[in-house]
């Protein structure tokens, strides 16, 4: 069972993403957090997620850029600065096609950058491809401390 963390503040996008994953044949659990602070707390086991096992990281993070409180770019920067989450696969999933967002995300160490298509069929296909590639095709980075 693959673990996916979806960082997304738009309830409609959350629903459409979950719907797309339900239709895929990947066995997965999607955890949803609604802003950058919650995402960092979850992944680094701090704040309201202090009780969580910090070593139990998701297999894949789907990260929106525009988020309340702490935005996706800052989340990415903090994750890459932490030895435990430095190599965690992060796919930026956003509405933006601004060249500077692409540049910043890749500079900060995003593994992939996907612009959400408007058409739901294309959106579903994109998510299924992301899931299938990052969870099945790709060799995951070693868990820190075990390599």
């Amino acid at each position, binding site marked *: 069972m693959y673990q996916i963390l979806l960082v997304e503040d*738009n309830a*409609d*996008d959350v629903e*459409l993403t979950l*719907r797309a994953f339900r239709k895929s044949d990947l066995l997965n659990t999607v955890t949803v957090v609604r802003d950058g602070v919650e995402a960092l707390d979850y992944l680094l086991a701090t704040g309201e997620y202090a009780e969580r096992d910090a070593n139990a990281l998701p297999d894949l993070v789907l990260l929106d*850029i*525009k988020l309340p409180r702490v935005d996706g770019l800052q989340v990415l920067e903090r994750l890459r600065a932490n030895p435990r989450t430095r190599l965690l696969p992060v796919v930026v999933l*956003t*509405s*933006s*096609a*601004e060249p500077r967002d692409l540049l910043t995300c890749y500079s900060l160490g995003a593994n992939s950058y996907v612009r*959400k*298509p*408007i*058409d*739901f*069929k294309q*959106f579903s296909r994109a998510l299924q491809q992301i899931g299938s590639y990052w969870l099945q095709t790709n060799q995951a980075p070693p868990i820190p401390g075990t390599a």
Partner: protein
Amino acid sequence: MIVTGDDPFRAVFASHPLPMWLYDRETSTILDVNDAALAHYGCSREEFLRKNAASLALPAVDRRHGTDASTNDGPEFELMSHPVDFDGRPAVFVSVRDVTALRRVEHALARAERDRRRMTVEFEEHVRERTVQLQAAVSELEAFSYSVSHDLRAPLRSIAGFSQALIEDAGDALSADAYDDISRIVAAAQRMDHLINDLLTLSMVSRSGITREPVDISDLANRILAELGDLSLTRAVGMRVQPGMVAQCDPRLVRVVLENLLTNAWKFTSRREQAWIEVGEISRDGGTAFFVRDNGVGFDPTFADKLFGPFQRLHDASEFPGTGIGLATVRRIVQRHGGRVWAESRLGQGACFYFTLQS
């Protein structure tokens, strides 16, 4: 200058309106003086001849010796000395020049120069303020289009996504009419997505800098035409691209220009059995104008000036779909290169779009 006792110059010397005198270079004894000098110093010839030449600099205000001219509104004089031969003796010829008018002009010039400097400083300050305001406006515009690209698309995804979900969830329960209604909603959301994307391109064009480099226009046109051909394999379009066309321009932006013009040509020739598109160059305005010509539906030349305004469309959207932003983007790019764009056509007779990439 030679002055001798019986020289005809003596007469000129004696009656000259400028104060003048001569003194012995070795003894500083005054040798001769004219009437104008006596009047100027206010003394008799005898008194003057008793003076020592060194003391004579004083009554006349001599600017060269440190008088501050700017605070002195009275008359000003300058002493001019020339070594001469006086009856075989080494002497010095001195004349007094009234420089009052000259000084006034100099003062006026200095004042004008001070004013000019002050105005330059004020002007530069003004330009700096304006630049700051402009930069603020530009970053506001950037924030705006950034926000548009993020926030305006999200509801569209919901509209299109949940319409699609509705079709899937309701399945066979949907009537053909209901299915058609939902399809229209999805199509409208997609049109709006194209509109947003085109607007973002237009705003990107206005914001981005221009980097000129040699661009192979022929190669670029051939590649875009090949891409258009790949998208509609059923159409047979005759085309000719003049080989060897090169321009100094921004390759990314000029690609947008050619993409727009060629996509239009492709679109507006779709009703022709024998569609024809031609790309070439001609001499115009002392430089090169590139053109894209087609044998499509053309446009009414009455509206030629409307073509390049944003959201202007001369054709029914159901006949020829489009956002009406493409040619506005073309014009913006061409203008940013210092060039111009214009079009010639007659309704039903095809169209030809010209553009230059230098002023």
